[in-house]
């Protein structure tokens, strides 16, 4: 509770200067807080009075092989997600995203937050939050992405989509002409010990998600600071830190406190018709000494992708259509304490978008993974997917 009080104090302290510059913010040009984020989606209709409803749908077909053996091949009704957003008043808005994944096998409230906007520089947000740990976790809608699969560093290390119950503040400050700095900082429930105890494959941070009822009454803190001097460039740094295990019970110390700390640097830039995005993450996990060697205490990874659009209106009947080509490099090391347990892959993609909101994606990926013995195994795959906002 002492930590929570500290976080709230920090939040309130930040609020004072934020209100002072509120007047300046009203003059800023319209621009989403996070490009492709929860308030930058193409909603279609107002079905429920002041509530806007939308969503996206994603379908995959894949053929993948590891050393010649078929693996993870077939069709997937990957996601059907529904969004709502409501302007309750000039100061209060509510947004939510409900995710139906893998044909409905997994149903998750991915995001459900109340924003109390005091000023552009200072908004209080509470609810089920998308954790600001890297830009990709904040803007990962499939119709937005140019590749069928999400980056490995996001899925394997950061656990995108990572959402947690919590409360905190966000805002933006103008910098120079058209530039800005945005921030988000939240106190959240953090991860639970499933990242070790439910994981058969060594440390797997995504298995510690879903700590809906805080397992250890010890909040974690997560935040992101992003600097964008212009529309064409943004550099972000973010971090997540907190205890993941139950270390106290009935007022007794029942275990050592073990923390998980993740740091991420993300970059987004546009230059000469090319779009460049990337993210690098490093995770440090306090692993019980009795499990070292087979459970990693350090994981790291990155992705870099370069994209270019072309072929505007090549399909004469679809004047808004265009194509994109891209290449992405993924590197993840699931156990940086020792050799092995890592993956490197390159994905080539070509997409056709009849409109900006709908993507037909064709990808070819090729890479090498190393097992816990550090033996290599080649993998490759052809992926086809359709994703569209609605």
């Amino acid at each position: 509770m002492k930590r929570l009080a500290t976080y709230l104090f920090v939040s309130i302290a930040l609020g004072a200067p934020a209100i002072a510059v509120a007047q300046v913010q009203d003059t800023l040009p319209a621009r989403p807080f996070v490009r492709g984020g929860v308030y930058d989606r193409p909603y279609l209709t107002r079905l429920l009075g002041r509530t806007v409803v939308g969503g996206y749908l994603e379908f995959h077909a894949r053929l993948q092989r590891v050393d010649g053996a078929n693996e993870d091949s077939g069709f997937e009704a990957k996601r059907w997600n529904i969004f709502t957003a409501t302007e309750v008043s000039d100061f209060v808005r509510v947004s939510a995203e409900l995710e139906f994944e893998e044909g409905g096998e997994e149903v998750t409230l991915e995001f459900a937050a109340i924003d109390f906007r005091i000023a552009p520089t200072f908004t209080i947000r509470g609810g089920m939050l998308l954790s600001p740990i890297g830009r990709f976790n904040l803007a990962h809608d499939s119709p937005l992405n140019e590749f069928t699969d999400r980056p490995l560093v996001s899925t394997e290390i950061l656990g995108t989509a990572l959402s947690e119950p919590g409360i905190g503040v966000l805002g933006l400050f103008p910098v120079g002409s058209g530039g800005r700095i945005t921030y988000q900082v939240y106190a959240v429930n953090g991860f639970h010990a499933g990242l070790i105890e439910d994981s058969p494959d060594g440390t797997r941070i995504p298995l510690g998600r879903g700590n809906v009822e805080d397992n250890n009454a010890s909040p974690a803190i997560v935040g992101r600071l992003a600097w964008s001097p212009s529309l064409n460039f943004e550099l972000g740094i973010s971090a997540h830190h907190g205890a993941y295990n139950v270390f106290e019970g009935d007022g007794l110390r029942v275990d050592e406190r073990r923390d998980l700390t993740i740091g991420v640097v993300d970059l987004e830039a546009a230059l000469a018709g090319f779009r460049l995005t990337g993210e690098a993450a490093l995770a440090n996990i306090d692993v019980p000494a009795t499990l070292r060697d087979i459970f990693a205490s350090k994981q790291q990874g990155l992705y870099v992708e370069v994209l270019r659009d072309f072929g505007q209106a090549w399909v004469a009947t679809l004047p808004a259509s265009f194509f994109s080509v891209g290449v992405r490099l993924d590197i993840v090391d699931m156990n940086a304490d020792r050799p092995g347990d890592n993956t490197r892959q390159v994905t080539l993609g070509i997409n056709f978008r009849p409109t900006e909101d709908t993507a037909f994606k064709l990808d070819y990926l090729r890479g090498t993974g190393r097992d816990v013995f550090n033996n290599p195994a080649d993998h490759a795959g052809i992926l086809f997917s359709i994703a569209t906002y609605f």
Partner: protein
Amino acid sequence: MERSYRWGVCIPVVLVAVTACDFLLTGPPDDGDLFDAPIPGLTTGELAAFVRGDEGFGRRFSPAEGLGPIFNQAACADCHSGDGRGRPEQALTRISIGSDLALALGGPQIQDKAIPGAQPEVVPDGVDISVRLPPPVFGTGLIEAIPVASIVANADEFDADGDGISGRPNWVLPADFVPADEPGGGTGLQLGRFSRKAQVSSLLEQISAAYHQDMGITSDFLPVENRNPQAGGATAAADPAPDPEIDAATVRAVVDYVRMLAPPAPGDDTPQRLRGSELFTQIGCESCHVREFQTGPSSVAALANQRVVLYSDLLLHDMGDELADNRPDGDATGREWKTLPLWGLRVAREFLNGDLFLMHDGRATTISQAIELHGGEAATARNAFLALSADDREALLEFVRSR
């Protein structure tokens, strides 16, 4: 319109062409280069069982699924790389004090890892230590199907023929849970064939014990959790999974899988290898590393009446002081080891990231080193190897390397 039509035709054509291409989608290695290929001639039903067992062999357990409370590794496949031998990092430590297996001190095997809330075992002072590298598991069904009489026929416990080699079988009592109709089961002493000192007679017992001792996974066959006597009883409660943690069918699936694993194929004969093969016999290697057996009947038809070119007599031999671990296993003494099969050496490095670890504890990293470590009954053959010309020595090594 014409342009969109072209795309509509081209994309499916490219897709079909690409999916048919091993070059783009990775191609499988030859079965003969693998440790985890099925023996030829299995029925579709047996192959289905093989695939089920393969999943079990590769399954890693989490603490929530029953791993521990004390354990060494989280999966069968975490010890046996590609179903072959392991690395020294995966070696198991067994302890004893004379003929006492030191159960009260954490024996017979030290479990050096523990789930949260439990305490791992440490090697206590004053005990004999035997480090055991995980052996390959392929070809075990063929070994199981060799008739007892064929193996015993090579025994010469008292060296009646005076050749200095006195191999003897390890007669062991199978565990109570091994049914009489299971290979290696039955009342009374059975011929030990498996593990480093041939102290286990049945695959069912070997695999049930590996689940129990190596992974801390209880089964219908061994349903009581392994405890750490060094830590007191309370830490056993840390394991949240109810016992037994896996059922008999899961164990039997892995038994079937291991039983049906084929040994990799040897390399082609070359003049150098043929010369090495002659020397292998001439200097006495073959006295223990018996080239081949013939299997008898088997419940798996593809295992019956097959040549088994394993280069082992499956008997115990005194290997001298340097390799002695002073730890008895069944009837085997602290100086005796089962002759290790040489099959699979040709591709062993490919499953150890280019490395090679030989002998019971992996202390040798080349075949030459391994030969030089031979003592006891094998000292004469070792000395003969060392006396060979450089060309002949290389020919013999190349022959062994190609098996």
